[in-house]
C-alpha cells in the first residue's frame, strides 16, 4: 500500500465520522457547563475530558461525586458504564491486533462509541483493507470527534451557558447511533442480535451500575452467533 492510498483512508474516516460533529459539540459543551456548575475549575474540567475521554462515564462520575457517594462507588459505577469499551476492544482486535503496540495504544485511547461504530462497520464491509489502512481510517474517524470533544468542553466551561431544553439535544445521540447502525444489518443474524439486545436492554433497565447494557449486549451477541450457526447448518443441509 502506498502512502497516498493510506492518506485517502484517513480522509474517508474523517468524512464518514463527520455526522457526529453535530452530536459532539452540544455534549462536550454540556459537560463543560455541568462540571463548572459542580465547582470544578477549567483545568480540572479539561483534565477530566482529556484523561477519561468518555462522555457517559464522565457525566456519571460527576453526578455521583456531587451526591457525595464514596469514591470507590463513583469509580465502580463510572467504569461499569464504560465496560462496553472492553467489548469494543475485543471486537476491534481481529482487525487492528497486528498493528504496532504504540498504534494499538493510541487507538485504544481514542476508542469511543462513535469511532468504534464508524471503524468496525468499514472494516466489516471492506475485508481487503490492510492493518495500516484500518489504523489510518480509524485515526481519520476520530479526527472530527476528539478535538471537538476537548474544544467544546473548554468552551462550555468558559461560557457556562445552558443549552435550551427546546433544542431536544438529548435525542442527538440516539438518532446518530440508529443512523450508523442501520446499514450494518446485513444478515438475519445481525437483525436477531439487535432485537434480542433491545428486548434485554428494556427488561434489564433497572439493573444497577448500567450493567443492564452489558447483559443485553452479551444476550444479543449470543443470539446473533447462534442464528449464524443455525443459518450455516441450514444452508449446509440444502
Amino acid at each position, binding site marked *: 500500500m502506498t502512502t497516498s492510498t493510506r492518506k485517502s483512508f484517513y480522509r474517508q474516516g474523517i468524512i464518514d465520522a463527520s455526522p457526529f460533529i453535530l452530536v459532539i459539540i452540544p455534549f462536550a459543551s454540556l459537560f463543560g457547563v455541568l462540571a463548572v456548575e459542580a465547582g470544578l475549575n477549567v483545568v480540572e474540567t479539561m483534565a477530566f475530558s482529556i484523561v477519561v475521554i468518555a462522555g457517559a462515564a464522565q457525566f456519571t462520575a460527576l453526578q455521583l461525586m456531587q451526591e457525595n457517594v464514596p469514591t470507590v462507588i463513583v469509580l465502580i459505577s463510572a467504569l461499569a458504564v464504560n465496560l462496553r469499551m472492553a467489548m469494543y476492544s475485543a471486537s476491534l482486535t481481529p482487525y487492528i491486533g497486528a498493528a504496532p503496540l504504540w498504534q494499538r495504544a493510541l487507538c485504544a485511547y481514542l476508542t469511543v462509541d462513535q469511532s*468504534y461504530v464508524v471503524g468496525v462497520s468499514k472494516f466489516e464491509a471492506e475485508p481487503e483493507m490492510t492493518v495500516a489502512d484500518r489504523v489510518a481510517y480509524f485515526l481519520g474517524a476520530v479526527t472530527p470527534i476528539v478535538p471537538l470533544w476537548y474544544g467544546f468542553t473548554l468552551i462550555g466551561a468558559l461560557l457556562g451557558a445552558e443549552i435550551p431544553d427546546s433544542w431536544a439535544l438529548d435525542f442527538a445521540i440516539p438518532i446518530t447511533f440508529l443512523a450508523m447502525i442501520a446499514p450494518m444489518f446485513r444478515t438475519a443474524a445481525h437483525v436477531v442480535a439487535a432485537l434480542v439486545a433491545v428486548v434485554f436492554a428494556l427488561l434489564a*433497565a433497572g439493573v444497577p451500575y448500567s450493567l443492564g447494557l452489558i447483559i443485553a449486549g452479551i444476550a444479543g451477541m449470543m443470539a446473533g452467533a447462534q442464528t449464524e450457526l443455525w443459518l450455516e447448518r441450514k444452508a449446509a443441509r440444502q
Partner: protein
Amino acid sequence: MIETGTLWTVIVVLGLGSFGLRFVFTGLVGDRAMPAWLLRHLRYTAVAILPALVAPQVVWPAATGGDFDTPRAAAAAVTLLVGLITKNVLMAVLSGGSTLYGLLYLLG
C-alpha cells in the same frame, strides 16, 4: 462541593481504568488468533450494544422524565427506517432530526 483530592483520584483512576478497558484485548491479545466461537460472537458486538444503549432512551427519554414521548419514538423509527432503506447515514440523521423537530413543533 467536590473535594479536590477526591476529584483528582476519580480523574486519574477513571482515566487509567477506561484506558485499560479499551486496551485489554487489542493490547494483550494483539495478533494472536482468537477462537472461532469468540469471533462469531464479536461479529455482533456493534449491532447488539448500540441498539441496547439507545433502546431505553427511546422508550423512556430522560428529557421527559422517563415518560414515553411520541416525537422521540417516531424520530427513532424514521431514522432506523431511512437508514435501512437508503444506507445513507446523513440522510437518516436528517430525516430523524426533521421528524423530531416537526412533531415537537406540531404536538408541542
